[in-house]
């Protein structure tokens, strides 16, 4: 990797939460911070401190904030639709808290879609391998809408891992999983990030040691 990819925030503060957030101290909000793609970052965020808001702002899903977000030194408000699609296909992958699967597609189709959106990073048999590891091989042909939250969460994890990325954004990625499944899923994510030399930003409510984090921040 020639140049180190980074996500930088400057005096970032979401407008709807502005007054509330300015009253408390934070490692993120209204500060200058750079996350590099060789870092595994945990952001601990109590309820209502803008955890999901932060993830969405970093992924350029919402714009109601003050300050700025830079992807590899470029303000994301200035990047075009084309560049945005390019970045989401190649640089930044995401696991949403609310999962965001296509309810009418099967589990496999949901994963496959993100695999073929760009030049595939993996062959499609990798989907089966990952699904087997996470214990959802049997529901691959089932409509996502009919799967349990736990299953949907694992589908969302695999979907995020079949594409190339330098950064993986995870918003409470294990909220619907039991301890055993969390361990398996975290191991898979660790492998995949190492394989790509990628960093991640994980937000969650509590402390945990699912990953060997390089930095821990409080929102």
């Amino acid at each position, binding site marked *: 990797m020639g140049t180190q990819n980074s996500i930088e925030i400057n005096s970032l503060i979401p407008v709807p939460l502005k007054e509330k957030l300015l009253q408390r101290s934070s490692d993120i909000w209204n500060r200058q911070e750079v996350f590099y793609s060789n870092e595994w970052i945990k952001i601990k965020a109590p309820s209502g401190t803008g955890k999901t808001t932060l993830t969405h702002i970093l992924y350029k899903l919402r714009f109601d904030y003050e300050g700025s977000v830079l992807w590899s030194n470029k303000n994301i408000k200035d990047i075009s639709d084309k560049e945005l699609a390019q970045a989401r*296909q190649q640089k930044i992958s995401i696991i949403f808290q609310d999962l965001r699967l296509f309810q009418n597609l099967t589990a496999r189709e949901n994963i496959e879609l993100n695999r073929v959106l760009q030049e595939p990073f993996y062959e499609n048999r990798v989907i089966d391998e990952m699904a087997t590891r996470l214990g959802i091989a049997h529901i691959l042909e089932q409509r996502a809408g009919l799967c349990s939250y736990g299953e949907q969460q694992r589908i969302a994890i695999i979907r995020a891992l079949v594409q190339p990325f330098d950064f993986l954004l995870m918003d409470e990625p294990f909220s619907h999983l039991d301890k055993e499944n969390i361990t398996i899923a975290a191991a898979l994510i660790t492998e995949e990030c190492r394989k790509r030399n990628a960093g991640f930003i994980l937000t969650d409510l509590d402390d945990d040691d699912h990953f060997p984090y390089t930095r821990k921040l409080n929102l």
Partner: protein
Amino acid sequence: MLDILLRKLIKTASGRTRFVMAVMGLSVALLLILAAVQVQANYNELLNGKTNQDSTANFLVVNKEVNNKTLNATTLSDDELKKLQQQPFIDAVGNISPGRFKASIESYTQNFPFKTDIAFESVPNAFIDVNNEDWKWDENSSFIPMIIPNMFLDIYNFQFSVSQGYPQITPAALKTVSFKVNMAAPNGSVQSYTGRIVGFSDRISSVLVPQSFMDWANQHYATQQTSKPSRVVIRTKDPGNPALVSYLKQNGLTADADKTRFSKYRQIVNAVVNVSWITGAVMLVFALLIFTLFIQLTIASCKEEIALLITLGAAPKQLQGFLMKRFFPSNIAITLLSLIVISILQFLLYGILQKQNIYVSAYLSYYTFAVAGIVLLALWVLNYTTINKYIKVNNK
């Protein structure tokens, strides 16, 4: 693979009936427009095509209307002739020179006696449709060639011979008959020449002699000096041209009504073509509107799917490409289908008209293809801009 998945996500089923309506509207509109173009092309071909050139149709004998006002004053002035020549729909004007001398013809033989006073006219050779080596005259010629209207022979064969008990006569037989032509000089002396009929024509209803004879005879036997013509023959590409007919009418001129009556048919064809055009164009506008709405509706009904696709990193280009593939092929199909239908109709028309000795092409004209291409291009632009616009709207 991506396309298969997108097809599952972006369903068009919600607007099935609208889609059928849009397709039907578009088809009918295209059919009307292409038919209008093809009919116009056929009509032009009929007017200008070599195979349809009718020897009499393009030549009109024009003279002033004879009424109380113009009685004995039907000569055409130089001005009037010049104006006639300048009209865009008139290719050439030939003066019909009248003989200004008294003449009569009579038979040499008592088997078939006749004698009648007669007057000759002549026109430049370019306006005559009888190509005959006998059709020439100089002072050493042994006879004076003449061209008479077919109608004269018909009058003889079907009226005169029947009523008088004379035998009927064929055109070929008549051409072999020589007769005496008596010409009276101003001083009263009469000189006789031999005349013979060398051809028949429908173009000019007059007894025609070669221009050279007419000039010579007028010089030697003329009793009056005016040489202004009262009739001219004009050549025109389209005797049915409404502009020609209205010009003649405005200037108090008349022409062979039979030929200009074509003008009425022409106006009807024009009206039909125009109605077809306008109906087609209006329908096209509505069909395009429905089609646009259909695209909008499809995109709107898949709003969430499209939003999530873009969230996951689908490029607007990918979605546009997919949607174009979804909508545009139906347009190509409609256009091709319309062309095929029009082709079949044209082929049938060709067969029907051929039986009546009217020749139109069996195939579609280039114009029809060109118009189909233009409409298709317009459809492409419309598809593209609509998709572009609504994906953008969706994206924000």
